[in-house]
């Protein structure tokens, strides 16, 4: 999001300004509240939560819920904690992000710098594929994963996320490369540079920002996905979101809210970290992902 100027013409009185700040701060508190609640309650013993006082700081600080959520909590049938599922999510997200980004970069390069008949159609079809409700592909996808013998595995999820990630990654790189001077490509071509040489030597070195945006967007989407994870990998290969939901919703016996909160923060940590470290790119990705180009 590029912000042209911080200037505003609208004048406001002192009373108005106090009101503005009040509203903005109240909303900031509203947005922060769930995170605050998750954080403080994940550090309390259970009885402090069940006796009320969700908003108060812990009287006895404890990291027990975190340890339990990470390594001993009951997820589904076995008391493994969330750790194996966290690892599943990483093993799924890293290759899926890498492959879909590379494919997107190459597609964007072809679609903008090597015009051919029907290119607009190809792009239009790819673009629409970003916005289908995934319910429409669930049944055939389950069949295909079964036929390929990778249903219920991380490989299956990698395939799914690459397939449905290509549309967005292509959209990003196409919009970015559309603004890249075609004369440079032509000049290199006349000098005898080939398809991949041009890509490698001319396009890629200037693609840093869009690679960051694309990786962040894909990582966030893939890490946060629940539908595909729940449909295609609900057992030991389940990703973090599915495991968290199992922890929270199917626990028998006492509901360990503090453990659930700790687990929720763990599931949120990677994308939150990305947001804190590279928020600028995250926002740009969101805005670009919202169709605009």
């Amino acid at each position, binding site marked *: *999001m590029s912000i042209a*100027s*911080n*200037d505003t*013409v*609208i004048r406001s009185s002192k009373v108005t300004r106090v009101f*503005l*700040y009040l*509203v903005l701060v109240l909303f*900031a508190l509203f*947005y*922060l509240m*769930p995170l605050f*609640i998750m954080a403080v309650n994940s550090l309390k013993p259970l009885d402090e939560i*069940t006796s*009320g006082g*969700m*908003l108060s700081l812990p009287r006895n600080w404890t990291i027990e819920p975190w340890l339990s959520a990470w390594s001993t909590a009951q997820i589904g049938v076995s008391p493994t904690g969330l750790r194996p599922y966290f690892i599943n999510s990483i093993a799924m997200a890293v290759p899926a992000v890498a492959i879909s980004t590379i494919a997107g970069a190459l597609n964007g390069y072809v*679609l903008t*710098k*090597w*015009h051919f008949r029907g290119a607009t159609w190809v*792009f239009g*079809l790819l*673009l*629409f*594929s970003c*916005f289908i*409700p995934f*319910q429409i592909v*669930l*049944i*055939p*996808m389950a069949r295909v994963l079964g036929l390929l013998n990778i249903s219920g595995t991380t490989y299956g999820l990698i395939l799914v996320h690459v*397939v449905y990630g*290509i*549309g967005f990654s292509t959209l990003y790189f196409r919009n970015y490369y559309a603004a890249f001077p075609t004369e440079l490509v032509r000049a290199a071509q006349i000098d005898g540079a080939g*398809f991949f040489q041009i890509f490698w030597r001319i396009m890629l070195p200037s693609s840093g920002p869009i690679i960051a945006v694309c990786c962040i967007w894909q990582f*966030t989407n893939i*890490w*946060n*996905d*629940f*539908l595909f994870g729940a*449909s295609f990998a609900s057992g030991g290969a389940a990703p973090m*979101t599915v495991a*968290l*939901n199992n922890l929270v*919703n199917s626990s028998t016996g006492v509901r360990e809210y503090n453990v659930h909160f700790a*687990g*929720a923060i763990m*599931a949120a940590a990677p994308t939150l970290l990305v*947001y804190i470290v590279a928020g600028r790119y*995250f*926002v740009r990705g*969101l*805005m670009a992902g*919202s169709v*605009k*180009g």
Partner: protein
Amino acid sequence: MAATDPMLSGGADFRTRLQNWLPKIVLAPSFAVMVLFVYGFIAFTVYLSFTGSRMLPSFDLVGFQNYERLFRVRQWDTAIINLGIFAGLYIVISTIIGLFLAIFLDMKIRGEGLLRPIFLYPMALSFIVTGTAWKWILDPAIGLEVTVQRWGWESFQFDWIKDSDMAIYTIVIAAVWQSSGFVMAMFLAGLRGIDNEILKAAQMDGASNFQMYRRIILPQLRPAFLSAFVILSHLAIKSYDLVVAMTDGGPGTSTWLPALFMYEYTFTRNQMGIGAASAVIMLMTIAAIMVPYLYAELREKN
């Protein structure tokens, strides 16, 4: 253009021809994957919606039977009504909050750099995390209700999440929390794109703040309104995770949405034909919104 440059394709040796074909060869796998996994799968699901598939796909055509049955099932009615309530409130409230936050932030606010990321971070979280957090905040046993009661307001009640008439509104609360910051970012970008000179001129002519918003600023934000509407309605129709995490469709089936309906009928109730039919309806609803929008966006650019 470049690929068919006569100067380069003149020498018809293998290397040159390969170079000319390379762009298409590189694009081919993605294109094939898309045709098969997106459009092929859509065709397959549409076909299934006309068959008597139950637990496994079958290929005996039964005409529009699944659609007829779909519209007679009570849960589908519930899901559609819920989607109406949820999508309507979610879109309207997120847009209003987003618009006002953007307008306020745009008034030379000190600390904008701190506030903006706070408004926006929920968008980085998964709906499962959001749902988990709000599930417990709204749970009368440990959440808001008991907290306010302990503050001294003993008759305070807020048990919507356990009330089958009100539970759908709790989903709206969580969804608005998740998305309104993003809408704010879109409007803020729109506001920053407005030319200050026009506003200054209007001010010289004696226009009040209200008039400037009504006549100049809001009309110029039309593209942002449109994008917000398209994205939010798209998110609303696809909503699945949030409901699963917060209420799992309950109490009873009172918070079912079409996405949940599709999953339940297809994978747990062994009514694949009806599930496929509901997925087709979801696709058509989204397509009715997305296709004209994407078409306009693409045409504008070319």
